């Protein structure tokens, strides 16, 4: 078997490993194995590539691989866990740079056919955009650049102009593949586009941007693969590109954003907004809440009148059992006036056969509130309203409440933002550690139960 065939057969094998690896990466239990598998695939691919007959000198390769490895190992071991997203964006930028370099190399090395030239310049553009965009994202995440959307007048027009120019110069190059100068212009333009597209996006949306740029860097590799007729680049690149898009979409959904909206921030005219909202409502869908539930070790359930209205007690009992099976501690914090009659919650929870031992009084749970990983507020409102503590003049000021807001995470399940019996706003819903799950309490909890069972 000749060398090239051997390399390619191994590539088939490596591609299969990548596919497996990516598949396993998507499931919590196997994710680590998946990563290792894909790492092995990469190693195998690199080793056989070294056998390529086109390679004449190994010196630079070895030097640069070693240097790159050292940097990679050092950075990856040094970084704090909290700095992960930044690091990923850095790596991503570097990856984009690599693709851009490869594409440029292909372009400068020889006059290309117009097909290959097109693909090469596409690879180059994508790589460059990924590179500069990722670095801006990194800056925003590490707060080297302001996390606020940076916008200016006419930015939409400027951006359209940039894109038009890029297309123009790219075409000029493709029409005459020897006119390398145009390529440099294209590189510059692509770098600027990367910056311009990411700048107007807010810091909170950065993970989505990174995921998208990550998908781009896959596409860049894929394009490079086309240019160099390398199957593995195509397969791996396409895999990353496609899965990256899906992942981006999933992340958008989880953050209740629209992908289109995030991406086109740079193309929307600036709207200034003077309203100052203290804190922000952060809705979340049950699917995402579930993963937090699953990881929690100690859980406090705070039921209120809404649980009674929804008759969610049976569902809650089921969830409790599942959480307990998952080795979490679950207790109920019963506020003395939760519901609409003394002992309202007791009646319901007894009906659902929740053990009396698990029902704790307000004072008991308040004294250990900080230790709860999650407080689940089910259709309660007034009884968890921190305004009773904080807001003099509120009609409920002075009423003792369950301090749900002091738990590590708070999930509030209710149907809307409407107020409770006392008719007052609840600042809890706007706290940083609070997530709102909107919906009928019974349905929401049944939903989470279902996730547990899947």
């Amino acid at each position: 078997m000749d060398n090239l065939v051997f390399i390619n057969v191994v590539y088939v094998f490596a591609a299969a490993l990548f596919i497996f690896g990516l598949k396993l990466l998507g499931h919590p239990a196997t994710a680590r194995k998946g990563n290792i598998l894909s790492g092995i695939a990469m190693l195998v691919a690199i080793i056989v590539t070294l056998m390529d007959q086109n390679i004449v000198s190994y010196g630079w390769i070895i030097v640069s691989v070693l240097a790159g490895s050292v940097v990679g190992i050092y950075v990856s071991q040094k970084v704090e866990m909290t700095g992960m997203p930044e690091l990923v964006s850095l790596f991503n930028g570097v990856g984009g740079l690599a693709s851009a370099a490869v594409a440029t190399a292909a372009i400068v090395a020889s006059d290309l056919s117009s097909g290959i030239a097109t693909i090469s310049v596409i690879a180059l553009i994508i790589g460059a955009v990924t590179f500069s965009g990722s670095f801006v994202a990194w800056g925003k995440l590490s707060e080297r650049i302001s996390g606020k959307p940076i916008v200016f007048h006419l930015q939409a027009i400027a951006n359209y102009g940039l894109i038009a120019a890029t297309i123009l110069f790219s075409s000029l190059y493709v029409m005459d593949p020897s006119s390398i100068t145009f390529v440099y212009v294209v590189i510059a333009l692509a770098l600027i586009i990367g910056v311009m597209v990411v700048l107007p996006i807010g810091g909170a949306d950065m993970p989505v941007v990174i995921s998208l740029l990550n998908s781009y860097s896959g596409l860049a590799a894929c394009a490079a693969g086309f240019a160099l007729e390398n199957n593995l680049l195509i397969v791996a690149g396409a895999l990353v590109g496609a899965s990256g898009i899906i992942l981006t979409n999933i992340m958008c959904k989880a953050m209740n954003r629209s992908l289109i909206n995030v991406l086109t921030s740079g193309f929307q005219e600036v709207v200034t907004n003077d309203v100052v909202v203290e804190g922000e409502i952060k809705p979340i869908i049950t699917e995402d809440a579930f993963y937090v539930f699953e990881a929690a070790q100690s859980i406090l359930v705070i039921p209120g009148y809404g649980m009674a209205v929804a008759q969610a007690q049976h569902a809650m009992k089921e969830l409790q059992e599942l959480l307990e099976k998952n080795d979490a501690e679950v207790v109920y914090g019963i506020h003395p006036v939760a519901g609409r009659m003394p002992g309202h919650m007791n009646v319901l929870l007894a009906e659902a056969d929740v053990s009396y031992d698990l029902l704790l009084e307000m004072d008991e749970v308040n004294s250990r509130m900080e230790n709860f990983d999650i407080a689940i507020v089910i259709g309660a409102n007034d009884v968890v309203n921190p305004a009773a503590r904080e807001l003099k003049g509120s009609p409920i000021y002075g009423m003792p409440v369950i301090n749900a807001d002091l738990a590590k995470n708070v999930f509030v399940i209710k149907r809307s933002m409407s107020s409770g019996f006392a008719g007052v706003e609840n600042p809890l819903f706007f706290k940083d550690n609070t997530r709102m799950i909107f919906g009928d309490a019974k349905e929401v909890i049944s939903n989470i139960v279902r996730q547990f069972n899947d």
Partner: protein
Amino acid sequence: MITIYLLFILMLAIFLGFELIQKVPATLHTPLMSGANAISGITILAAIVLAGNDSSTAATVLGVIGVFCATVNVVGGYLVTDRMLAMFKKK
């Protein structure tokens, strides 16, 4: 004709990419992104060939840059992903 094969491969790989990532728990979003990012360092293969090739200095230099960058991406990417995943307790 080669392009046809490449197209086939591209089409299938894209479909596969879509199918593979269907339901990913939120906790895995970042590791998955990071892991995929490491895979996108696959450009290293092309860069290696370019860097080892003697055709032109420019290409070699670019190739070396490519190998360096891609290596950082690959090595760092896999290691970081692994660190993140190591934090999840096994179910």
